[in-house]
């Protein structure tokens, strides 16, 4: 795999341009942090990249088949336990190890719907890492985490992303720095700087 290439991608909703000729290359084994103000089209770009939404124009190539995602809204299986959610994409041993590493030990048998927002976020990160995808996409993965927890989770994510192709959306430059990722900024009119 030689990396992911997004070329001149356009996307509009009701005539309003959300992505305006976005081009981006994510070299294999490198992490990129996508920053920009709320509503500038970061999540739309991820959705188009993941094939969840069709672009109006442009092309995307090189996206590996095994892609692990932390969605903006978690998208966990709420009625199932934390462990079940992680086990759904990996073996039990890996799932247990990650649940523990993310500070969810003791809550692994709780249904996800009973968890706090921050715990759900960590469960989503655990599932993403456990899947061991060739490409990792994270949409504001540290949202809702307190500072102490965030530092631990950041360290874990950094180590998990090491050598992987990844695209991480964040609003925080410190997070990008902690992930040692190249920063790409999106403007409010849907262009990349």
């Amino acid at each position, binding site marked *: 795999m030689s990396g992911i290439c997004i070329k001149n991608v356009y996307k509009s909703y009701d005539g309003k341009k959300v992505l305006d000729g976005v081009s981006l290359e994510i070299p294999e084994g490198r992490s990129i942090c996508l920053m920009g103000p709320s509503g500038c089209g970061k999540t739309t770009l991820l959705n188009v990249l*993941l094939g*969840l939404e069709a672009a109006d124009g442009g092309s995307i190539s090189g996206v590996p088949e*095994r*892609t*692990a*995602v932390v*969605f903006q*809204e978690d*998208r966990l*299986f*709420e*009625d*199932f*336990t934390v462990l*079940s959610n992680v086990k*759904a*994409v990996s073996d039990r041993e890996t799932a247990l190890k990650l649940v523990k590493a993310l500070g969810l030990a003791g809550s692994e*048998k709780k*249904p996800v719907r009973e968890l706090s927002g921050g715990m759900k976020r960590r469960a989503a990160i655990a*599932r993403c890492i456990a*899947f061991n995808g060739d490409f990792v996409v994270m949409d504001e993965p540290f949202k809702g985490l307190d500072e102490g927890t965030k530092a631990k989770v950041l360290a874990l994510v950094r180590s998990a992303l090491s050598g992987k192709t990844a695209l991480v959306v964040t609003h925080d430059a410190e997070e990008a720095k902690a992930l040692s990722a190249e920063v790409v900024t999106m403007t409010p009119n849907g262009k990349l700087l």
Partner: protein
Amino acid sequence: MALKKALCRLAAVLLALLVWQAAAACINEEILLVSPLRVLKRLSELVTEKGFFRIVLYTLSRILGGFAAGFALGLALGIAAGRFKLLETLLWPYMITVKSVPVASFIVLAVILLSSSRLSVFISFLMVLPIVYTNVLTGIRNTDKKLLQAAKLYRIKGAKKLLYVHFPQLKPYLISACSVSIGLAWKSGVAAELIAIPDGSLGEMLYNAKVYYAMADLFAWTVVIVAVSVAFEKLFVFALKKLFGAVEKL
């Protein structure tokens, strides 16, 4: 709050019984309206009679059989039709026919084709099938698209997808289908027995009560039917919820 609600309901039931007792006392003709006390007395006699439980068990086993078959087939067809649109289209005329044709028409038709002991099984099955099928299909169709996308990206397929994505979404639809269809299975199943009159069934008991104008018997057997039907419904829904709970803890 729950206790208050239960007490309010109990008070309403007691009031209804008082109204019934008062109406029976006013009419003072057992053949027109038997009193609740007389029904209670007759019920206590029936329960101690030899063969009471055999009669209840006879009808219960048949309605249970019809319900189980309708539930299983409705579930399987609902899942399959949710996956294949063509199957939904092909099944549509059958389901709409079963739903709209009066149960009496089916009973009259089936009584010619089936033995009296099998009629209630078939009729219960027929009443349960479209309800479970429709609810399951609606549950599958209303599956959260975002969870489906997550499952696709995480390569969660087949039985695993059914378990993690569809199963929780189906839960309220299945519970609602069971609550509705169990009562209907009993009503239609006993109606079928009333027409086919299989020996030693609840339907036969109702028929005899009608023939001999034994109103206390008619009401007492009706109380038995309602009690067994409600108990069966509560037990089944409880077991279903437990099953869902156990699966979610896997």
